């Protein structure tokens, strides 16, 4: 069946099987392979994307459910030339090793920072409990999120001062 999803600002219409999961739609139909699949029980969070602005595990959403909605993936939040503060934070603080969990981590952390611009260590750890990382032990991921939060607060303050 036909579904139209706006992904990273661009509308895509594809003919998919009704059972197609959003993660497979992104990876296989649109070739956006930054969103990863790490499990089949919705535990690992590697597939996290934003759906109408909310972080979701894209392996728990059918592509057709996302019809008419806006999806943002890791490819859509920043580029190598213009990194999102979280991307910069993960780089700066060595918040990744193999990088497989990283897109999901960043997308999940982005949601946290939208709600809480200055989260404590405990808040970050609690928020990220649905995202597994087997490489980093999370220590540097926490630092990365704090680093990004500080950068975003500064940017915000700068903008406010400009207004």
């Amino acid at each position, binding site marked *: 069946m036909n579904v139209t999803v706006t992904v990273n600002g661009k509308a895509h219409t594809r003919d998919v099987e009704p059972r197609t999961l959003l993660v497979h739609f992104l990876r296989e139909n649109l070739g956006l392979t930054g969103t990863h699949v790490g499990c089949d*029980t919705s535990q690992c969070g590697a597939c996290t994307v934003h759906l109408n602005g909310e972080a979701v595990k894209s392996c728990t959403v059918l592509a057709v459910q996302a019809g008419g909605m806006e999806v943002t993936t890791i490819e859509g939040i920043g580029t190598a030339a213009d990194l999102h503060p979280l991307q910069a934070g993960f780089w700066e603080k060595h918040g990744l090793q*193999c990088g497989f969990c990283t897109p999901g981590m960043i997308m999940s952390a982005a949601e946290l920072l939208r709600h809480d611009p200055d989260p404590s260590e405990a808040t970050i750890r*609690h928020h990220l409990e649905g995202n597994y990382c087997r490489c980093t032990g999370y220590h540097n991921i*926490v630092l990365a999120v704090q680093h990004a939060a500080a950068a975003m607060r500064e940017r915000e303050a700068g903008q406010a001062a400009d207004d």
Partner: protein
Amino acid sequence: MTDRTEKYMGQALKRKEDPRFITGAGQYTDDFVLPGMLHAAMVRSPYAHARITGIDKSSVEEMPGVVAVLTGEDVAAAGAGPIPVGWLLPDLKVPPHHAVAQGEVNHVGDIVAVVVAETRAQAEDAAALLAVDYDALPSVALGSAALEEGAPQVHDDVPGNVAFRWEIGDEAALNEAFNRAHKTVKVKLRNHRLVPNAIEPRASLAQFSPASGEYLLYTTSQNPHIHRLILAAFVLNIPEHKLRVISPDVGGGFGSKIFQYQEEVVVLLAARLLGKPIKWAARRSESFVSDMQGRDHESEAELAVDADGRMLGLRVNTVANLGAYLTLFAPAVPTYLYGTLLNGVYKFPAVHAKVTGVVTNTVPVDAYRGAGRPEATYLIERTVDVMAHELGMDPAEFRRINFIQPDEFPYQTPVALVYDSGNYEPALDMALDMMKYRELRAEQERMKGTNKILGVGVISYLEACGLAPSALVGQLGAQAGQWESSLVRVHPTGKVELYTGSHSHGQGHETAFPQIAADELQIPIEDIDLIHGDTGRMPYGWGTYGSRSAAVGGSALKMALQKITAKAKKIAAHLLEASEEDIEHEGGVFRVRGAPGQQKTFFDVALMAHLAHSLPDGMEPGLEATAFYDPKNFVYPFGTHVAVVEIDTDTGVVKLRDYGCVDDCGPLINPLIAEGQVHGGIAQGAGQALWEDAAYDEEGNFLAGTFMEYAVPRADDLPNFQTDHTVTPSPHNPLGVKGIGEAGTIASTAAVANAVMDALWHECRIAHLDMPYTSEKVWRAIREARQGAGMGQAADD
């Protein structure tokens, strides 16, 4: 940065590889698509042990998209042999390990048949419906149970389920030591089984070109050349150079991506038989029953000390469960990587270990992060703590008085190894200071009797890593060499490519190797890239495991670089019309000593090497060098880790409150990367102590087949870690480096276990409990101990 004063080595540089990972541009195996690609799904055994009495292909052949169904017979008819073992012990019994089962399945998840279809969903649909008839056979899951009289036979050709019996050390000397002992303790312990769980599931994509007879395999591998060698020479019987193995970005390995797996054989064969590229990607639930699992020892350890608390001897008897088949390193893990490490950091006059390798109806067991060394460390350090508690000595002090001293290196142990260098006390002192050990002990006393108890686990570990030397591993049964190679290719523009046989799946090689090169060549790191993971591009190498990349691969790189700078110097001397002895290579340029204006840059030299308009007489053009490095010994990193846990006695919940460690892996190439490795390792080791358990029931049914039943540590299970290091270089290799990839895991399981047991000893004199320390287990133990001591609440409350 043309004028170079600072060194790159030792700097905490941000990683060069990260931009692609943080933007979602990494390229993992499952991201690749080849034209006309078909998808394979594995039909896996639901039985731990069964005879296959029939497979009805017609049950699915008409289903949408289905292209082919391949059984064990088809795979054998296509010429695939069994997957070999890479490490042969004397008298080893090796049951055949077929890519697809032939007649019999031996563990839940064993591959029974393969369905190939146009889409993955179609392949999986058909695989789920393929009609297979089985006759269930008796099965067994626990190593010790498989050794009992009358236990089910796993393989007819492995009598009594014993794959090998192995021993090391001087038993007579040990017995004599025990006769002299002031005190002995005996601990029975189980090092339970784990699933490595790299977050990227394994995947493979194969292509065959009938025109050239060449195969291409993208696969999640830590060592593409090893895969090529085994697949070409042993399994598929094709010329090695006709198979190109690419392991692109790989999402973690931890050992689980070293081995030759059945699915890789299957996709290569299917690609040839069907004339189309074939992809297979594991579901996580498949990973649980098809990735090699780790650990699984049942042991008895006895430790003897004299009246001063000096260790006299250690006796070890271990049953190592190898699972249903012997895989690549399987026999080596519980023997040479375990038994030889049982000396630890202590002056043991005598050690004797017996290991029985047993086959069972479970997923095969092989190297998992640390491979044998975490098992040895856990056994020694638990036993040492039990003794310290029995002696009423402080566990840290008990360790200190038994350390091998710095002036005793090289140190010959009674179990074969010669330690290269070490200085154990400073690491212990720093770790105790870092964690405010005395204050913790005071806090522990204060908390006694409340419903929160504190435990402090201190362990001092040592590991043998930098896996090589070829001659030695050859004597020990390895059917492989373990050297490493490096190729340095300087282009006319002065840009440099480094090629290594090591493989990075998170270890940051694309940054660390260029750091080494930038210092040697004295050019900006931006001009240097590392290429790895493609047998079609790089010279032969043995890959990444056993913390060998820096010590072995990095050393090979250093040697190749030295060849480049030697030649570059000759060219510069020639261009400057000076004698080679007068050339200084400093600050990124070649200068004539005492003639400041006279200089050539690395770029000038690289260009002239390629233009070849003016080279010294007889010199070959070009600027490229290859080096092969085979070390003379292992390297021996060490350190002290301290874990602090808080146990809620009302619920049994164990909280890992603090963790600190001091590791020594020689000089650090990149402290940021080294620290990251330690962090990740700690999390994995703590995971074993507290949560992770690849549990089977007695018959071999797997009870932990998804992340729902298998608890991988999450962010809110862990604290921040404190890390520091001392630096004791290895005298053996040109960089002096040791290894850090496994240290955290090797140390932390024992540290966390000792912390939990320390709490339980102080609270209610429980001497030992097996991991993992689930809340139920801990709660029951506390309750029983209190009742036993008459200090419990009413038994029926």
